[in-house]
């Protein structure tokens, strides 16, 4: 009798602890969602350049390498629960469907803002707490989620069919700041008329300083699709050259329905209150020197600057020696006996309004041991099920200098010099 009482007491205590834990996980989830709602509400104030490197292959008897298809660049802004697209350099965002800009291959939306809104904020998804994990060196909390097809969140269209799918996956948030670190999603409830074996999306987020704001933005993502015809397509998406965007004109829809697409495409657009940003002419060599060292105390997103070492002369262009080029720390990652560092430079002061700095890195000088990388490498999950990874390689993003610097402590010297060649947005 006494043993039974003790057992009952232990069980009651355990169920109370479980209930308390479940309640605390619910509270934590509510806090994360509130935090991300706040972040998403700021997103319409920023526009970025979306660079999509596209790959494809047909899975036959012999597995061949993924073949690069092309690179698509579009300006993107998120507004009124839609992602709006414009051609590079254009200030009028009149398309909500990036499909209009391509003639072949896969294209999609959602990575910049809509996917986050659909999964975390729009309601309808169910969540379950999965515990703490380490992700990219950070202590993260993971939740799994499922959002049913009936809520109509994601549409897939391939030549053989079209249909809505449901979403299932996970998200990870930083335990301290509650910032979203990553979202993973794969398609579920694929309708019978849609011959798709797998569709996966991964989005990674990072903070960046734009003007006086410290903004959480999608930094990169992958879209993967495998059809029943064994056609495999992968898009690697990166966002760079983000800047403040002030919407002045009204965004008009013919319907008040929050989820409805604009009924008349030509009557809906987001026109920015900014001028289209000018650019340096292409093929100009520009040598920069950092104005301050970068150390491991600097967080990803920290603003950095450099100055031009020589005058830059082009047709109708003159940038004086000592002009300031602004940017941010795009990535710092400890790897083996050193660090991989990515510095992103976005605008150059040339006397008048700042010009977009859009250039390819040619060399890095004055820094023994630094190994520049002109290529990016990424692991992507391929095949019908998660778990099989392959490496894809693509040219470095324009305006981004990536390099390995050996040592136990990160210290990029302030004397670091880089030589760039300017390029056009459309090449």
């Amino acid at each position, binding site marked *: 009798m006494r043993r039974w009482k003790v057992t009952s007491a232990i069980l009651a205590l355990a169920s109370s602890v479980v209930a308390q834990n479940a309640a605390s996980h619910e509270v934590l989830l509510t806090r994360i969602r509130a935090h991300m709602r706040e972040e998403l509400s700021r997103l319409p104030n920023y526009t970025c350049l979306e660079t999509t490197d596209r790959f494809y292959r047909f899975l036959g008897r012999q597995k061949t390498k993924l073949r690069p298809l092309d690179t698509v660049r579009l300006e993107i802004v998120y507004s009124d629960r839609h992602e709006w697209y414009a051609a590079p350099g254009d200030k009028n965002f009149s398309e909500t469907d990036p499909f209009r800009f391509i003639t072949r291959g896969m294209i999609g939306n*959602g990575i910049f803002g809509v996917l986050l809104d659909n999964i975390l904020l729009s309601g309808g998804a169910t969540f379950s707490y999965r515990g703490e994990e380490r992700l990219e060196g950070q202590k993260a909390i993971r939740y799994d989620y499922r959002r049913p097809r009936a809520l109509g969140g994601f549409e897939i269209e391939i030549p053989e069919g079209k249909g809505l799918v449901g979403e299932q996956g996970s998200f990870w948030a930083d335990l301290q700041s509650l910032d979203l670190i990553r979202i993973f999603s794969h398609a579920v409830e694929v309708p019978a008329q849609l011959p798709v074996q797998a569709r996966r999306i991964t989005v990674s987020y990072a903070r960046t300083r734009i003007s006086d704001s410290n903004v959480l933005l999608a930094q990169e993502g992958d879209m993967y699709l495998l059809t029943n015809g064994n056609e495999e397509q992968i898009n690697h998406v990166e966002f760079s050259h983000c800047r403040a965007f002030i919407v002045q004109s009204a965004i008009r829809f013919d319907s008040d329905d929050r*989820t409805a697409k604009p009924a008349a495409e030509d009557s809906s657009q987001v026109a920015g209150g900014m001028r289209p940003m000018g650019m340096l002419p292409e093929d100009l060599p520009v040598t920069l020197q950092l104005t301050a060292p970068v150390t491991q105390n600097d967080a990803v997103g920290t603003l950095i600057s450099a100055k031009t070492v020589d005058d830059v002369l082009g047709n109708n262009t003159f940038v004086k020696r000592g002009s300031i080029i602004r940017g941010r720390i795009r990535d710092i990652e400890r790897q083996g006996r050193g660090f991989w560092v990515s510095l992103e430079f976005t605008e150059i002061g040339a006397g008048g309004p700042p010009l977009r700095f859009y250039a390819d890195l040619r060399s890095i000088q004055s820094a023994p041991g630094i190994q520049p990388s002109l290529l990016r490498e990424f692991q992507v999950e391929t095949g019908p099920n998660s778990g099989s990874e392959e490496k894809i390689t693509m040219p470095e993003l324009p305006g981004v200098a990536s390099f390995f610097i050996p040592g136990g402590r990160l210290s990029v010297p302030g004397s670091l010099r880089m030589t760039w060649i300017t390029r056009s947005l459309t090449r």
Partner: protein
Amino acid sequence: MSSSRAAMFLLLINGTIFAQNNAAVLRFEVASVRPAKHGQGPHGTPLVVNHGRVTLDDASLRQIIGHAYGVQRVRVLNCPSWCDSEGFDVVAKAENPDATQDQIRQMLQTLLLERFKLAAHREKGEMQMYALVVGKHGPKLRDGRESESSDDLASLISLLAV
């Protein structure tokens, strides 16, 4: 290869002018049709459309008709004697830079009607043709290597979060 007869749609040039509703007719904003100065001999003439601007270099009447009506040139019957021997340089501009291929074809049809006084109609008829058949020892085709597949094989795919 064996010869046989098959029914197919043909385009016949005839003397009847169609009654057309002018309001519905699509035509180029401006068009220039000039006899080509230097004949290139037999050659292909792709229909080049760039932001509503159409260019055809040294194209025979049969080639222009082929583009305008979307038919193979061998299916254009009753063409006049100079149909293949004379070449024309065509440069035209549609008012709408985003005119579709179908709209451009309709504009070419109007151009043929107005500049060449062309009248045509479609009909179904029988023609002599070659049939590709498997020989008595079976096909000797081999599977293509996947790595040699063309970039154009990447299908158009749209993934939209809605």
